[in-house]
């Protein structure tokens, strides 16, 4: 073989090696950029969500649709560390109270904010969901006032319906379906025939048992296991907003952790109101009797909320009922009397 032939072959080998190196380099850069861009979008969306949730904390009674990139937002709670994850980035939302399903899919988020008054404003609850997720309110009696009221109050943008016969439900192939039964018997909580084919993790249910004025009651969370629903756990409500919370979130632990956080805030706000009442009791002599009467219910609210912020759900409903009586019956009555006497109100 001539020297020139050998050189030509070496040239080709050289070109092959260098070409591979150049190609590998650019593929590497592109892959890195792709990962970086996804992470950046996740971080940006996470920051946007932070802004949305902060905005929601300060506004109330608003429902809005927010456009987001189609990354999917996951909400989960582990040992009450409540987090959301977007595109690989995870953020803890600590003091915020967000009721959301485990996964929000699609390029739109429905954000609904309501203030939790028990009976004074404690905090805002933020409800997040996807307009693609389906909510079915099931009133088997056909005359449940609460079911009617909930259906009327939920935002229009939410994909929901009120049915009396679960067998009339047809499968619309939504990525998640949440069933909310109203005062159903455990034997009546069954997977509707049409929804048997839905994946277990994508079909959940809650049974809401509450009577007028719908401020206390019980909730039982269910998960689909094969062809039937299995109870996950029982918990309690305080105020109608916690009923909405149980409908929006499909996770039993998430609901309870959100409620614990709400009770913690309730405890802090109550401390302030207690201190304020003490000052008014000492400074506004003409109304001191009425302020004195409010000391006991405020003390009860502080004590009960202090327990509920660390143990929820409690073993019996008595503790929640005691909180309800102190807040919605005794304290509300005191505040009304103070208004009638033209005294500075408690809240």
């Amino acid at each position, binding site marked *: 073989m001539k020297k020139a032939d050998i050189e030509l072959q070496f040239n080709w080998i050289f070109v092959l090696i*260098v070409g591979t190196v150049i190609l590998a380099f650019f593929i590497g850069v592109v892959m890195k950029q792709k990962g970086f861009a996804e992470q950046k979008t996740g971080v940006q969306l996470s920051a946007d969500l932070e802004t949305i949730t902060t905005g929601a904390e*300060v506004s109330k009674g608003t429902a809005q649709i927010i456009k987001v990139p189609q990354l999917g937002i996951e909400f989960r709670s582990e040992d009450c560390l409540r987090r959301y994850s977007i595109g690989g980035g995870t953020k803890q939302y600590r003091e915020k109270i967000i009721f959301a399903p485990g996964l929000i899919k699609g390029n739109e988020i429905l954000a609904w904010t309501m203030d939790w*008054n028990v009976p*004074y404003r404690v905090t805002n609850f933020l409800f997040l969901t996807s307009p693609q997720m389906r909510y079915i309110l099931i009133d088997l009696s056909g005359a449940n006032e609460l079911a009617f009221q909930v259906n009327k109050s939920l935002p229009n943008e939410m994909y929901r319906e009120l049915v009396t016969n679960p067998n009339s439900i047809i499968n619309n192939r939504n990525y998640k379906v949440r069933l909310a039964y109203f005062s159903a018997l455990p034997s009546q909580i069954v997977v509707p025939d049409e929804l048997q084919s839905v994946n277990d993790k994508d079909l959940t249910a809650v049974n809401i048992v509450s009577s007028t004025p719908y401020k206390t009651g019980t909730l039982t969370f269910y998960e689909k296991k094969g062809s039937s629903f299995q109870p996950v756990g029982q918990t309690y409500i305080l105020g109608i907003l916690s009923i909405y919370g149980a409908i929006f979130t499909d996770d039993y632990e998430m609901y309870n952790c959100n409620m614990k956080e709400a009770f913690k805030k309730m405890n802090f*706000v109550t*401390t*302030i109101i207690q201190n304020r009442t003490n000052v*008014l009791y000492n400074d506004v002599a003409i109304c001191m009797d009425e302020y004195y009467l409010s000391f006991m219910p405020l003390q009860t609210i502080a004590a009960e909320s202090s327990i509920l912020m660390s143990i929820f759900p409690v073993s019996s409903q008595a503790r929640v009922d005691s909180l309800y009586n102190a807040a919605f019956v005794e304290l509300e009555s005191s505040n009304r009397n103070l208004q009638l006497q033209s005294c500075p109100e408690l809240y």
Partner: protein
Amino acid sequence: MGETIAILIIFFFLVIFGFGFYVRVQQSGFQRQKLEGTNLRAIQVAQKASFLPELQCSFKNVQVDDCIDLIKLDAFGRSLSNSDGSFYQYYSTVFGKSDIRVQMVYPPGPTYIVYTTEVTKPENNLSTFVPVALYNATSKSYSFGILSVNTYE
């Protein structure tokens, strides 16, 4: 062969130069985003402080925007410093590294510290001022004040 190697050296030199330039542009974008984030956080903290039910005035259970109840303000400050630390711990997650004060402007009066945090080397200090009404429930009178929120990085 030598010619090819020379071309490759120039090629890689251009690639590295271009990459360096790209990284610099990215870095300046990152700095800008960081500053935007800080601005956003300052506004968020100011918003949170203005709408805190622990401080806001309320009449017949209706909250009044941009109004701070002086008795609540005083009670809030005392609770932050007196309690077992759980109160401060909770609000430090709400306000982060910031300093929130309310100054009574008319009639001239004291400055109340709502929340403060010790920062050894404050960076990107941003101040937001919100005019507020200060309500005294015992005398049923109003004063004029400024809610100032300083946030740090």
